[in-house]
């Protein structure tokens, strides 16, 4: 159909060609980024993991915070319950997550005890998510009861293998960014098509990384940092899988995740420059909320600088602390994702 229109209307063809040429450069850039990340992950997985976290961890959190603040409505109205549950729940679940380590050490829990602790936390997190779906479902008069069996299935999995469940969170979180980007591109069909082709190529790229990593040596060095990176990627949970393959896979996915938030989102997901807070509905609501938004983002900016300094002083400890506290942004994404994927739900408030 479009071909026929183009044949009849030369101006339409010219406009479409212009759009396509506008897509080509960003798509090529994105493909180059993915290719570079894949090569780095295959050749030097530990290096990529260290550098990517050092450079992008802080800024990507700040950009996520800015993105979600811009998607919060100025007045919550009927959504008050949803947003209260989302913010309160994610904060409480993060606090419980941070407390798990000290609790396990204080009570000298063995492997089985630690597994039960993770499974208990997972059960609470799943219950919270089901409640989020229920509140949103009631709000939009949609069916939400499917969330109960799905949640129970997730609980069964968490208790069957707490380690694998946690690993699912580690590897699943980077992929969530791809969903947000895809949704943001819904008004740019040509770009969305190009990005989806890139998404479709990711399994092939991953297969290439696995082939390159499976026969490679273990990540260089027996130092504590390398071991912690390998553990984070699941080396102790999946002992039969080569460490190098796990570290490479995780480093690659994490880098793509950072790329989406730090490089793509500021151009695609923001309707105004990140520092122009007038584009944030909550900022326009009242002086108090404007102050709160400003404080959150300014404080976040300071934290990014502090994080870089701490990484430079003691990378290993800072990395451990960061990945523990970073659970907050993992959890915050969940209710926004549910809202994004709900039948009538969109993050649009404008």
């Amino acid at each position, binding site marked *: 159909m479009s071909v026929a229109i183009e044949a009849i209307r030369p101006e339409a063809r010219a406009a479409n060609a212009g759009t396509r040429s506008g897509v080509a450069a960003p798509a090529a850039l994105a493909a180059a980024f993915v290719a570079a990340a894949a090569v780095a992950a295959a050749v030097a997985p530990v290096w990529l993991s260290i550098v990517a976290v050092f450079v992008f961890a802080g800024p990507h959190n700040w950009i996520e915070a800015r993105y979600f603040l811009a998607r919060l409505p100025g007045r919550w109205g009927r959504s008050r319950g949803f947003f209260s549950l989302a913010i309160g729940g994610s904060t409480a679940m993060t606090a419980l997550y941070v407390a798990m380590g000290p609790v396990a050490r204080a009570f*000298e829990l*063995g*492997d*089985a005890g630690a*597994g*039960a602790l993770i*499974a208990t936390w997972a*059960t609470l997190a799943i219950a919270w998510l089901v409640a989020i779906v229920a509140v949103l479902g009631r709000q939009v008069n949609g*069916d939400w*009861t*499917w969330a*109960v*069996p*799905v949640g*129970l*299935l997730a*609980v*069964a*999995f968490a*208790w*069957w293998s*707490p380690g694998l469940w946690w690993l699912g969170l580690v590897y699943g979180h980077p992929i969530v960014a791809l969903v947000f980007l895809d949704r943001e591109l819904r008004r740019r069909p040509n770009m969305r098509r190009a990005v989806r082709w890139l998404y479709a190529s990711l399994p092939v790229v991953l297969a290439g990384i696995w082939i390159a990593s499976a026969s490679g*040596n*273990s990540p260089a060095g*027996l130092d504590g940092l390398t*071991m912690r990176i*390998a*553990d984070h990627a699941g*080396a*102790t949970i999946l*002992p*039969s899988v080569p460490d190098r393959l796990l570290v490479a896979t995780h480093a690659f996915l994490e880098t793509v995740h950072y790329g989406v938030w730090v490089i793509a989102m500021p151009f695609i997901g923001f309707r105004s420059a990140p520092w122009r807070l007038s584009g944030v509905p909550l900022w326009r609501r009242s002086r108090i909320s404007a102050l709160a938004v400003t404080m959150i983002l300014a404080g976040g900016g300071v934290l990014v600088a502090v994080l870089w300094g701490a990484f430079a002083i003691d990378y290993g400890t800072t990395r451990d602390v960061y990945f523990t506290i970073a659970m907050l942004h993992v959890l915050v994404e969940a209710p926004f994702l549910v809202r994004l994927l709900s039948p009538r739900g969109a993050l649009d408030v404008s």
Partner: protein
Amino acid sequence: MTSNLRRIAIATFCCALWCVLPTATGADIARPDNPNGAKSVPRPSRNDQLVTIEIEGTDGWQGYLYIPESMLAVDATSQPAGMSAAGTTISGVALSLSIVFGGLWLAKSRKRLGTQATVTAASILIVLVGTATYALANASPYPLANVGTLRKAAPNGDPLKGQVRLIKVADDGEKKIRLVLPREGT
């Protein structure tokens, strides 16, 4: 159902049978001996205990091996660690309730799944079940000893050899052997 969809469904079903049947019927057949002549590692009995080994560095000039008293005599009655009773119960109950509520949801919503959706879901399920059966058919019924980061102690597979002083310690509740080694240069 259109003829194409029917063909896809039949092909998928045949593929699934091809994946599942050989692995299901051959799951208990022992693997062949190593053609290189190397002896395979003997399969442990179900009564074997899983032991945690912790290797530490020390600034001292000799090595120590700390062994809990109870581990010097093998406790043949102990069972290997697997899922805890609570974990098994909760997982089982949640799985059962999931199926029950899933069925209730399907009945209540009175949804009729379309042919395409059914074929897609069945294909995904069959591929997952087939892959899992293929990968896990020979899995040990008892948990694997998780070597963890210990493999880094011998990165090239070369044996490490030396003497350590054996020290019997009181039980601390966890079955853990501590190997304390002098750092390089001490």
